[in-house]
């Protein structure tokens, strides 16, 4: 592991999301070099660290809402280790596309996916039940219904400019204030 630095640490995670918000983070292009000067990544899909190592993080960026027990556990872990938590994107804020299942019961949803769906071939009707698989929540929940979230960056995904704007503001100790064209729900 690299020598310890005093740079603020930023952790990121994709819960029930599609990694589109992380793609949008990478879409800040050459500003990634500036970002590398400013911060140290803690656990994140970008460096593939899987867990916190006990050091405080200045900012945690949460993509995706909570669809299962694992999402809730990871989100609570982020809340424990990060000074500021930011919901990034529609799924973290509203549940997004995964929340389309909220209008039907978990039972109906599982049945459609593994038994009765038009393209499903499962003659024995076997359902995934490995103990390693996290159990689904009754419905997909936005992150702020599970833990305290400090700021929200809407968008599907939020644009690279939105993420850059908010992240640089937070690193300078200011709350993110998005100009009109950067608040978008799509």
């Amino acid at each position, binding site marked *: 592991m690299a020598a310890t630095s005093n740079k603020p640490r930023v952790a990121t995670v994709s819960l029930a999301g599609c990694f589109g918000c992380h793609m949008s983070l990478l879409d800040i292009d050459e500003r990634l070099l500036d970002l590398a000067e400013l911060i140290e990544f803690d656990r994140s899909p970008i460096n593939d660290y899987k867990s916190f190592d006990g050091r405080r993080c200045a900012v945690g960026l949460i993509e995706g809402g909570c669809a299962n027990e694992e999402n809730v556990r990871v989100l609570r872990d982020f809340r424990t280790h990060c000074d500021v938590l930011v*919901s990034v994107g*529609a799924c973290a*804020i*509203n*549940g*997004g*596309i995964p*929340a*389309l299942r*909220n*209008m*039907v019961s978990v039972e109906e949803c599982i049945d459609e996916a593994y038994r009765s769906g038009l393209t499903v071939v499962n003659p024995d009707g076997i359902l995934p039940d490995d103990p390693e698989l996290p159990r689904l929540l009754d*419905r997909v929940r*936005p992150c*702020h*219904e599970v833990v305290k*979230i400090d*700021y*929200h*960056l*809407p968008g*599907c995904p939020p644009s690279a400019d939105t993420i850059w704007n908010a992240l640089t503001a937070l690193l300078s100790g200011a709350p993110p204030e*998005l100009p*009109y*064209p950067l*608040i*978008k*729900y*799509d």
Partner: protein
Amino acid sequence: MNAPITITIDGVEVPATPGQTILEAADAAGIYIPRLCYRPGLEPYGGCRVCMVHVAGRACAACTQPVSPNMVVENDTGELQEQRKMIIEMLFVEGNHFCMFCEKSGNCELQALAYRFGITAPRFDLFFPKRDVDASHPEILIDHNRCILCAGCVRASRDLDGKSIFHFTGRGPDRRIAVNAEAQLAATDADVTDRALDVCPVGALLRKREGYRTPVGQRPYDQAPIGSNDQPEEA
């Protein structure tokens, strides 16, 4: 009888005509009062409550309240703007508003108001109600998930198209738009040219095969907020 009178909106004296509503006088004077269910040319409904203003300390809907001489109207106050913001947030959590795949995104007045008020997340828990889609008509789609019960289609179909295809049914949380047929829209005489299709502020009543035509960045509310000067009022 119709001699011009003067009212005051946020300390600005505004000319008005007896018979006008506060909203009409404000629009004529170039003062924006946020609104959602109001449509020029349709009978005011007063349903969404976004245009609530204070007159002599009492709250009233600017779209239904007639002007009176020397009326003093408060519009742009912290309290009213906060209440409007809360109404917008409640409308968002009450329905299923998935902007990311909605054809109306970028041209939706509910979304545009949320942008204008700088809403980044609703403060209320989401309902996720189970609502239907009526895609029976070959040219027209009704998506109840997005309906905010503004009665725009009800009024336009009745008063502009003379068809009365849409009406309300149910009460309270069960209130929804119904069509004038045994079952679905296809059984009505709804037509793709109906004016009722032009007044839906959200993506609940849509012409099929017209979505996503305008590129992102060029849609009506992409660059400038609803109610700003370069947002011409819809006819």
